[in-house]
Structure formats: structure tokens, C-alpha cells
């Protein structure tokens, strides 16, 4: 995967805009007024969960060696290439629910309307058009971001070095203070 959805839980308000946008983009009509009366009901593939004092949007992580891909007996869960998101081919899903059992994040679900396994497809169609996934676009606070892995690593590295400098400076200060005394 060259780009991943990164979640910054410190920014999440729990507004559930991502859930709404997700259900909408996966509905038949893709129009809110029509989607709410659609049958079967459009399903969201991202869930905002309350965890301690935080709200956390949880969706498929599109794992590198995805356990769900490995366990599916019919090959219904696949990724087209190493760079592509993990998607479900409904026509092959026999509903055995092994993927629900094996997902380390518990994000695979069988919808109430009992069709194939529902999981985040990273808005493949939108990605192909150069757009961001619907949840990322809808997020008002920037909790959800579509970032390339390189960028993630770069940011992390920068943050880590800043932290390191801060700590070192703090140490230096206390040292010099002691020396001064």
C-alpha cells in the first residue's frame, strides 16, 4: 500500500461524519435524501467507537499480510496487487464468516441484511479517480487522513527528532543550572 488512512485520535470529536459519508458513498443512489429510505439500508464500513475518554474511528487497516485474505476458503477476499486495498468479491462469498473470526481488529461484519461480508474498500472507485476516500473527505477535524507511507514515516521521524531535541535541551538546562549552583 503506498497510501494509508491514518487516524489521529486526539482530534476526533466523535461526530460520526465519516460513518455517514461511508454509508452514503456505498449506497445505491449516493444521494442522502434517497439513501436513508433505501432497502437494503446502506451500510457503513467505518465505526466510531468510544474508548475510555476518546472516540476512535475504526475501519479495515488493509493489513500487509492480511489474515482475512489468507483464511478465505473461496478467495472472495483479495487484493489485486500489493499496492491495492483488500476488497470483497460478493459473488464468491459463501458467508462462512471465517474472516470475521480472524480479523485482529474485529472490523469485518456481516450486515443485518445478511449479504456478503462488509468491509472497507478504501473507496477504490474514488481513489482511481484521484479523489480521497469518503470518510477522509468528510472528516471536519483532520482526524482521518490519506497519507503516503513515506510521508507518515517522515512526519514520525520529524516528531521523534523534535522530541529528542526537547528532551536533550531540558537535560542540558538542568545540568547547567546545577553547575551554576
Amino acid at each position: 500500500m503506498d497510501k494509508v488512512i491514518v487516524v489521529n485520535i486526539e482530534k476526533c470529536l466523535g461526530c460520526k461524519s465519516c460513518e455517514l459519508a461511508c454509508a452514503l458513498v456505498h449506497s445505491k443512489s449516493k444521494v442522502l435524501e434517497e439513501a436513508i429510505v433505501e432497502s437494503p439500508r446502506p451500510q457503513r464500513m467505518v465505526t466510531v467507537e468510544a474508548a475510555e475518554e476518546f472516540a476512535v474511528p475504526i475501519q479495515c487497516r488493509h493489513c500487509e499480510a492480511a489474515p482475512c485474505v489468507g483464511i478465505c476458503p473461496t478467495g472472495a477476499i483479495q487484493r489485486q496487487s500489493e499496492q491495492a486495498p483488500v476488497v470483497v468479491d460478493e459473488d464468491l462469498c459463501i458467508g462462512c464468516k471465517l474472516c470475521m473470526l480472524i480479523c485482529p481488529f474485529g472490523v469485518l461484519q456481516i450486515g443485518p441484511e445478511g449479504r456478503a461480508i462488509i468491509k472497507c474498500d478504501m473507496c477504490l472507485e474514488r481513489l482511481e479517480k484521484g479523489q480521497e476516500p469518503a470518510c477522509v473527505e468528510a472528516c471536519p477535524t483532520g482526524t482521518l487522513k490519506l497519507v503516503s507511507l513515506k510521508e507518515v514515516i517522515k512526519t514520525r521521524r520529524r516528531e521523534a527528532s523534535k522530541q529528542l531535541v526537547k528532551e536533550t535541551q531540558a537535560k542540558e538546562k538542568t545540568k547547567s543550572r546545577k553547575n551554576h549552583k
Partner: protein
Amino acid sequence: MRRIVVIGGSAAGMMAAIAAADENTDAEVAVVTQDQTPYRRPGIAALIAGYITEPAEVRVFSPERLAQHNVKLLCPAEATNIDPQNKIISIQHDGKEEHLSYDSAVIATGGHPLIPPITGADKDGVCTFTTYEGAAEIVEKAKGASCAVIIGAGFIALEIAEALMHKGLDVYFNVRSRILRKLLEPDVSESLSDKFNRKGLKMLTGEAISEIGGEDRVEYVIYKGRKIATNLVVMGTGTKPNVALAAGCGIKMGPSGAIKVDNRMQTSIEGIYAAGDCAESPDLGTGLFVYSPVGSIGASAGKIAGRNAAGANQKTKGFLRAQADEILGMQIYSIGHSSTTAKEVNLAVKVHNLDASRLGQRGRTTKPFEIARLLTDRNGRIVGAQLVAKKYGSQFAWQLYRAVLEGANREQFLEQFNWPRMKLTEALVDLVESTVVVENVGEGKALTLADTASRKKINQ
């Protein structure tokens, strides 16, 4: 050119056909099936609950998919005879008799519902659900009904019960012993029964319904001498292998009554393979051949049968049964053996209770899951696991699955077992060793698990 005929068009048959065509692209693969709408089983509950109305929405293995793999679909067609000497399969296709010659064949004729000998079980209003038509009948009968009685013990029977409850029906759930008997330990079963009862599913456990009564259609059932008025009875009482065709050509059956196969899924006649609900399959833990009519095993066995039919030589060490479902807000996972299935294969097991209720954050008692059980054999290796959770149970279930698959040592496993925030080892200091006595298993007779190295590689 190799000609491969697959008989049966559900998960095992279709996977066999696709795998055969992929294995040997020059082969000519044909599927003979009566089933016009192969569908995914969880779809029945959705149909009954009214979430969907079109069979196309739960259909799997579309004709287009088969065409992509160059698999020829003969439907509706019924195989009437196999002549293994001349290698000819006779079929009825569109009302005409045809003869297909083959080099290898796969039998995936599935199973049919096992109807218990209850008086009145043949009455109008008693439904089963192994075919799409059966499911459609339940939908039709549920329309005017106010009450339904489900007789069964498995996941799909429970799903149907939940769907009928969603339709606003009064639902009774009858099971002779206890729910999910083969999948869960007795106390886990009972605690789930209680939970379902509280949610409005009226459980009638411990005794089978003695009579289904009514003039010519169902009007009532008798349970423990009590009369319960209902117009709809759904039978989810298990599966019986459909072996008439195989038996007709002299293929041997195993002790379970299903088709006997070897580790290549080949039957007693060379060149004829079998998979799915009509055949036995090797159990990963013990290597013994057992009858386990589970979709995922059927599909995996079908793949192996198909590849071998196409000329490969693939052997399986065995399949690990793993099932999961969410019923009335409870996630239920069962992996590998339960004490019930262990008894059937003479495997001595010990049941351990994983207690996680002491896992507190800042002194608060939080429960990451409701119930968890580990089953170990005499060497302390994990052979089965069960888990009940309200939410996100799979973050533990996947670890249990891996442990059973690898036959991990219990103590080592507990050290590694973790959940996102903290290790579980501390919470397990007072691990309760509940003792489920496995009766009728003599010390000498009790099997220990096959060597661990063989367990590492699963069916792939």
C-alpha cells in the same frame, strides 16, 4: 484433453470446478447441478427478515464467473448414474438424457435436511432451508403467521429465529439437548440460552417436541405435554449426506455414512473425488476422518478435490473446523474441538476457563469478552477454543484460532495472549481448571494429537 465432471453446484462443487479449471487450463470442466440459485447461507435469514427480496442478492458463483474460468454449467441437470468402468456419467439435462464421458469426476452432491422422527413432521407448514426454494417457502409461510417454532441446534437455525423475531413473530426455539451442542461446552451453551431467553427468544431446551399436530397443516406442537399454537415449524436439525449416486456405483462409505475419502479427497474408486456435505474429511487435530458439514471445510476440500481431479497431487493434513456468528447481539466463536466432538473421536481433553474479568483499567472492572474456554489434550496442547463476546471478539478469536491451528502449548500461549492494552497473563493467575470428565475414554485408548510439525501446515 482432460475431461472433468463436477456433480453438485454449491460451495464444494463450484470451488472444485474453479480450482480444476485453474490447475489445468487445457482441461474441459463441466458442472452438473440442479441448484438454479446457489446462495450464501446467511442470506436466508436476510430473506426471511425481509431485508432483501431478490434471490440474486444472495446468489453466489454466477454463470459469468464460471465462464471466466472456462467452466461449463449444465443447469438444471441431474446426474442419474456413474459408470466407473466406461467412465460415463448419465445426466438428465433439460428433460433429455445425456451421457458425459470423463477422465476424472468430483462428487459434491451435498446433504439434505435430517428430519427427526417426530409425529407430524411431514405436515404442510414444516419447512427446511437447505435449498433456496425451502428458504422461499419459509418467507411465504411467515407472512400470515404470528408464532413460529424452530427446531434445531446450529447457527443457521438461530439466525432464522432472530430473523423471524425481527418480523415480529413470537419465536420458540426447541432443541433436544442444548443449543450449539457440538460447538460449545454445556455451561457456555446454557449461559447463551439464558441470554437469548432474556432477549425474547423462547427457549424450549432439554427435550424434543413430541408431536406436530393439526388437521392437514401445522396448527400446534406439543412440548413436555404443553400445547403451543403455531402455523410454522422450521427444521434445522442437521444434515444427512446425499450419497445415493455414489453408493449406486459402488463407492465405499465411511462409518459416518458419508463418502469415504483419502487425504487427496479421492474416493474408493480411482479418478472419482468427493468433497462437501456428502463426504467425510480429515480432522486436523487427530487426522481421523469425520463428517463435518461446514461450508468453509466444504470449499477447502472442494479445492483440493478439484486440483487433484485436474492432475495435481495435493494432500491435506486435515481441516480445522472454525465457526463464528453473531446472534442477538452476541458474537460466538468456536474453533477446533469441543468436549462433545472430542469424545466422538476418543480424544481426552481438559477444559480451561479463561477469566478476564479482572482486567481492570484504573481499578475499573472491564470485560473484554464474556466467556472464553480453552481445550487441551493430555500433552497440554490446545485443541479447541470457544469465545463469546459482545463486540470485537475477533481480536481474541484470531489468537485462539492460531493457537488451535498450531497446536500451541497452553502455558506458552497464555504468555503471548494479549489484547490491545495489556497482557493477559496477570489476569490468568487464578485460571480455573474446570474439569470436564471425558467418559468412556480409557487411558490407553485416548489419542494424543498427531505430531506438531504436521499441524503447522493447514489445508492450503
